[in-house]
């Protein structure tokens, strides 16, 4: 019983925290994001496992977490509103070549971040070659170049 409750609580806490911090916080754009992710994993591990290092406990925990994930994905399919709150929605940052400053400020993305995505995915050289840039739900930036 203990491990199921622990799994539920840690899942819920992490879900809420990650969502509160915003799309970009742990999207692994920098090396330190990745380091932070590892530290968070290490910090929650103890709370999840407790003193019980048995195979049964580990298996039960994995089952609980995956079961929750499946359950939540079913619920999200059924209730689109829930999906919005849990996964968020994409935000357009460059619309037809125009930078949407206020939105960029709110989601904490600057031109350098968009340029990085433009360099990386399309080999673009300048920001004015970008027609659309979208901050996707997972925190990655998609770029659509002018044709």
């Amino acid at each position, binding site marked *: 019983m203990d491990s199921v409750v622990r799994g539920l*609580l840690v899942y819920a806490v992490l879900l*809420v*925290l990650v*969502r*509160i*911090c*915003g799309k970009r916080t742990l999207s692994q754009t920098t090396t330190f994001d990745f380091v932070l992710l590892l530290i968070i994993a290490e910090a929650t591990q103890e709370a999840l496992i*407790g*003193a019980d290092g048995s195979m049964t406990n580990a298996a039960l925990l994995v089952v609980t977490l995956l079961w929750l994930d499946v359950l939540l994905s079913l619920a999200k399919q059924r209730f689109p509103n829930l999906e*919005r*709150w849990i996964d*968020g*929605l*994409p*935000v*357009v940052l460059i*619309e*037809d070549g125009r930078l949407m400053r206020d*939105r960029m400020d*709110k989601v904490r993305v600057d031109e350098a971040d968009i340029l990085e995505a433009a360099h990386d995915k399309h080999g673009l050289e300048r920001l004015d070659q970008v027609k*659309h840039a*979208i901050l996707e739900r997972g925190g990655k930036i998609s770029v*659509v170049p002018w044709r």
Partner: protein
Amino acid sequence: MRRINGLEVDQDLAFERKSWTVQRVGWGVMTLAVVAALAGLLGPGPASRATASTPDGAIAVEYDRFVRASAPAEIGVSVGRGAIQGGVVRLWVDRRYVAEVAFERIVPEPASVEVARDRLVYVFAAAAGATTGRIGFTARPRTFGRKTVRLGLDGGSEVVFGQFVYP
């Protein structure tokens, strides 16, 4: 699917503004949590430390108001005038509390433990001529919630204090 200048994207700025507000409230809550933890409201820390003593000053207990389940918590019992009798200190602790926390370590180790109806009596040997002393208990709470701790001198006065155990 919405279309913005030919771009098919599920953007909803009204929703986004709502979620940004929620996010900012969330940051406020996170700040409060960090400040509360630093102050000692979510576990051991400055605001958590407290002392309780018997009116006659025979025992004074230092403890934490806020502790956490399965994390070690210190309870220090200072024994004073009249606590050492016949070369021993006979300190009892409520059995209910002993059942709810696991005593991981007791310093000094008791010479013996006696089981009574609702309490455990720990008997500590005192050095010849000693009039005061300090006994440290390291407890690891097994369950969470509010706990009432009662302890005292066998045949003497008792101390009652509360502790809140976070999960």
